[in-house]
């Protein structure tokens, strides 16, 4: 198991290199010059040229790429266009808040999505299933900021139960930190739970049709035994993998939630970068999100392997 993990982590290195290349290609493929874009159409061409030179953008593409990768290998993500500060320390300061929200959001997704999807799957084609399925469809058709706005209005403005905006680091004050993270986490969770619920429903229905479930009934096992040890234990397997792949949506939704709730995470850094046309910053943040995605997927894969005895770690 440890060796398997080590192997998989070693495979991350080429993946990150691939990612950096992909990001780089994206930027090269897209028309427009980032410096000109940042300074606006009225900028002095001499100034544009000078900044391009300072940032090394006048060098051949390959040199630019190698330069960037060289920096990456030292943990250097480059220099922010707009603030002229190194990006790495800025990002590192923001990562804990982002990871906290990712984790709590994921927790809400699992706590809401998995049980409802499982129940819908068990009671396929009954009114319970129809109700839950329609609810899930409406949920995944609602814009996430819309959902968040409603949450703020109801729980912060009207009921005054929870703070609407802001963030407290967990290390500073765990209780306050949790209070501040409840609304963002629930918003993120509610928006993404319908996806998991739909996957769980489909996986449950699939498992219910397996022969071992029919045989469990033929053995006269208790309903509780069959649901827990047969249906749930086996439906979890595909769900873990799909959950990993769904993380992309979670991370995308996270950016919106961070902006909506003034959550000082990496996502807001990204939006700042986008609005200020700070393209090194955008590149760096997208890379960080992609790495988070890849690592969490690896985690999902290992959980899957641990849950499924048929998978050998070699």
């Amino acid at each position, binding site marked *: 198991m440890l060796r398997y993990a080590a192997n998989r982590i070693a495979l991350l290195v080429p993946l990150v290199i691939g990612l950096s290349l992909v990001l780089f290609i994206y930027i090269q493929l897209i028309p427009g010059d980032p410096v000109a*874009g940042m300074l606006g159409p009225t900028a002095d061409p001499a100034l544009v040229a000078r900044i391009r030179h300072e940032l090394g953008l006048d060098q051949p593409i390959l040199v630019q790429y190698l330069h960037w990768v060289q920096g990456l290998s030292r943990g250097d993500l480059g220099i922010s266009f707009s603030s002229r500060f190194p990006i790495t320390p800025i990002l590192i300061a923001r990562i804990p808040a982002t990871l906290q929200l990712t984790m709590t959001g994921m927790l809400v997704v699992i706590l809401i999505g998995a049980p409802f999807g499982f129940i819908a799957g068990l009671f396929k084609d009954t009114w319970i299933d129809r109700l839950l399925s329609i609810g899930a469809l409406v949920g995944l058709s609602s814009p996430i900021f819309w959902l968040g706005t409603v949450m703020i209005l109801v729980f912060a403005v009207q009921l005054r139960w929870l703070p609407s905006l802001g963030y407290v680091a967990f290390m500073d004050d765990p209780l306050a930190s949790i209070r501040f993270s409840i609304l963002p986490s629930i918003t993120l969770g509610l928006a993404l739970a319908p996806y998991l619920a739909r996957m769980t429903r489909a996986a449950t229905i699939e498992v219910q049709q397996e022969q071992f479930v029919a045989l469990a009934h033929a053995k006269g096992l208790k309903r509780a035994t069959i649901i827990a040890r047969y249906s749930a234990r086996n439906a979890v397997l595909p769900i873990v993998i799909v959950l990993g792949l769904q993380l992309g949506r979670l991370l995308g939704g996270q950016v919106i939630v961070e902006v909506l709730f003034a959550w000082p995470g990496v996502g807001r850094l990204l939006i700042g970068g*986008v609005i200020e046309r700070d393209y090194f910053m955008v590149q760096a943040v997208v890379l960080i999100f992609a790495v988070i995605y890849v690592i969490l997927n690896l985690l999902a894969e290992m959980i899957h392997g641990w849950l499924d005895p048929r998978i050998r770690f070699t």
Partner: protein
Amino acid sequence: MIRSLDWRSLVRNGNGTAGLIFVAGVVLTAVLAGAIAPYPPTMMNLESTFAGPEFGHILGSDEFGRDVLSRVIDGARASLAIGVSAVVIGMVLGGLPALFAGYLGGVVDLIFTRIVDIFMAIPALLVALGILALVGPSGPTVALAIAIAYAPTFARVIRSAVSSARVQAYVEASVGMGASTFRVLMTEILPNVLPIVIVQATSAIAWAILDEANLGFLGVGVQPPNASWGSLLIEGRQYFFQAPWLPIGAGLAVLIAVLGFNLLGDALRDVLDPRAWQREI
């Protein structure tokens, strides 16, 4: 096989009927926007700034006194156009290479799959954001950004559909009889892949409309004075405490459109491709 798409079973599927009605409503609204909107969408009336819902302006008026309902109806054009064109462009960008990779198989397919995996590691919304950071937001660039962001997903789905269609016996037979690659792709592969493409595209239009709204919220959507649902929602949010009714219309419109395409996509999936849930990424 798309020729045998059974409209009756689509309509008999409750989701299908509801989806068709919603989608038809949204499409008609977009096409006939000029004719059915009660006022020109940009007509200002500074006397009725932030007027609440009232007779003649059932969704109220905005900061320039423009009729919100008319702006929502007008916004349907941009939102639907962005949603549909993003999916079409994305399908071409992702689907064409996937068609060849899946068909050729072997090393080409392997390399293609690895590359798509890498692209997939970047969440779609972030890809779109990054692109818009470079090219600046406007209707067409939003569509392009969403298209590029979705292309890897489409590529993955189409590649797996093609490679499973390829191994089917009759394709082999047709190659054996000396049919050209192009001919096999057009006559054997495409008809098998089309149902999956249609299912995928229908659901993807729903995501695209939603992501247009998301990008609008993040400030990189369609820019004023043009209206899309995304831009209406962000405008509405700025004056949330003065005029909380402003975003209601656009929010409902997004919900109806996205729900419609999702319902239709689900129903098409049931009718055309029962096991496709596994392919949903």
